[in-house]
């Protein structure tokens, strides 16, 4: 940390909290994340958007190197707070997870242990990571439950997960992720299983806590509405690759990649009436049968013959806004991405 603050003073650009270069994740011989690069500034909220199978959740899990036994994470660079995550041993990773990185999932019922009270589960985390005694840890748990908006936390602390509503369970998950004051919160579809009125409550809570703890958030979601109203910057993923990287406002008002454009045109909104939705024809290609060249080309309305020959590089068209489309390079190719 010391090192990064001095560096930040030299150049006015803050040192990124997280740097990812050319991340590849594969299961057996299937590559599901292929060449993802991004960096995350302290306090920044980054959204990762994509449909099922786009690799957005796997990308997030790779940040913590949480992988099933057959999963392999490779990258040219994967640094969190200046530390090389790829070089970290299992014990060091366990320290980082939960301490400096917190994570919340879509379905709190499966992430919480059903036979332990919620208090017990928070106490477990606090004792392990902060080394507090039993009584202090319990007080800390009550305090964090109060902070995430659980009414009567002194009583709720002894409740079991099934006794809480979906919204309350997600609050407990958030409390558990934040109890050690992480610098990065990874939220994988945290509100997808919730009703809209509860979703709004949880998003508001997350924003409050984000400014209070000055942490960065990676928000993974398939819901463009959630991402556009919650994040500073978005990565749009398609078939394991980032196709657009842009400030959230620009991505939704002036999308540069045809896939982003197609997604936006296919969503019915509550703010106006459309005669007909512009559906993107076809389906996402499976990872074992990827088209050569641009992976979106078979479904793309703008596709030209060169699109099926090489993968277009992610090129910035305006500062801070890049897209991997040959329309950005004038139908000529830069160096191949791999």
């Amino acid at each position, binding site marked *: 940390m010391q090192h990064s603050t001095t560096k930040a003073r030299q150049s006015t650009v803050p040192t990124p909290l997280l740097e990812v270069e050319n991340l590849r994740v594969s299961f057996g011989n299937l590559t599901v994340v292929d060449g993802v690069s991004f960096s995350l500034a302290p306090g920044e909220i980054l959204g990762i958007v994509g449909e099922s199978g786009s690799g957005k959740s796997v990308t997030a899990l790779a940040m913590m190197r949480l992988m099933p036994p057959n999963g392999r994470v490779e990258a040219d660079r994967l640094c969190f707070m200046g530390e090389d995550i790829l070089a970290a041993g299992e014990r060091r990773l366990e320290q980082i997870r939960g301490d400096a990185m917190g994570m919340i999932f879509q379905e709190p019922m499966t992430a919480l242990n059903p036979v332990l009270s919620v208090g017990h589960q928070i106490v477990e985390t606090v004792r392990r990571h902060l080394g507090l005694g039993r009584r202090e840890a319990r007080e800390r748990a009550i305090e964090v439950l109060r902070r995430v908006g659980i009414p009567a936390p002194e009583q709720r602390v002894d409740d079991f997960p099934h006794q809480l509503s979906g*919204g309350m369970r997600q609050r407990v998950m958030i409390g558990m992720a934040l109890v050690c004051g992480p610098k990065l919160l990874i939220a994988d579809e945290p509100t997808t299983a919730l009703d809209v*009125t509860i979703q*709004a409550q949880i998003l508001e809570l997350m924003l409050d806590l984000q400014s209070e703890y000055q942490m960065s958030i990676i928000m993974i979601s398939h819901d463009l509405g*959630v991402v556009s109203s*919650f994040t500073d910057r978005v990565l749009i993923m398609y078939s394991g690759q980032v196709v657009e990287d842009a400030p959230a406002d620009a991505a939704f008002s002036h999308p540069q990649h045809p896939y982003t454009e197609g997604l936006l045109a296919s969503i019915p909104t*509550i703010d106006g009436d459309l005669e007909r939705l*512009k*559906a993107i024809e076809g389906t996402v290609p499976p990872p074992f049968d990827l088209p050569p060249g641009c992976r979106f080309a078979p479904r793309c309305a703008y596709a030209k013959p060169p699109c099926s020959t090489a993968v277009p590089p992610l090129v910035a068209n305006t500062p801070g806004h890049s897209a991997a489309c040959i329309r950005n390079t004038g139908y000529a190719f830069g160096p191949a991405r791999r």
Partner: protein
Amino acid sequence: MLSVRALRKEFATGRRGLFSHAGAIRAVDDISFDIGHGETLGLVGESGCGKTTTGRLVLRLVEPTSGSISFDGTDILALSPKALRDSRRDMQIVFQDPLGALNPRMTVGELIVEPLVIHDIGDALSRETRLRELLGLVGLASYHASRFPHEFSGGQRQRVCIARALALNPRFIVCDEAASALDVSIQAQILNLLQDLKVQLGLTYLFISHDLGVIRHISDRVAVMYLGEIVEIAGKREIFDAPLHPYTMALLGSVPSSRRAKKQFQTISGDVPSPANPPPGCRFNTRCPMAQEICKTTPPPLRTLAAAHDVACHFADDIQGRQKKGREIRA
């Protein structure tokens, strides 16, 4: 075409102790609505509000506790089991999860013609012709008929379910979250298909969804449910642009959208109360930002406030007055 009056469904809950009475959950409590020929009525609400139960009651897949349902003048609740089965030719349903709705050991062709077999319609040859027709209608190719459901993507499976629902030439279809489990680009394909079929075949839909954007897109009129009751029912423009019930406003305010102010959410506090023990008075009073004393004691009746705009709120007139004033100031 469909007329529902004072429909009610209670589910018994288990007896708790030796001497206590078994409780009842009023999943659907005294709701009434009409759907006209060729119309799509959207039914929207949060989980547990009774929208799915309503869809099943209308088709009598679940027996109502009381109330009446008439379909083209026929009293559905008075039908004998045989007559009810015949009426199903006219009324079909498409569910959320197509994989759960399709028998994994039957081919898609068998699945689609199964309703014809059950109702003993046509011979092998005419069923084969009908199968090709149905596959074409939902955008599948004839070679798909010999495949099994697991070989298809989610969107294609939902097309199979739609083809199956169309096999008997129904006039009315209940779509229960029919596009909700699909990715957005596929959801758009299915919504477009449903709209095309409606025009092509003159269908009428009861479209159930929790997604307000989808409801606005597909519906002509919208009913908003909360804890087993309809709190507001009106044309879609009225519901989305000039809602008169505080719950409808809260729902709309909660939807995140790129066209709204960033990082600001209009929230209402609290959780949905348990339907086993709904609050007295107006059921929304525990979460309503406008709630007064009267709301805690007296349930507001559903009343007509403007042309074809019904709302169940004691203060809907005030809300309407404020909206009018707002429009005058803007004008």
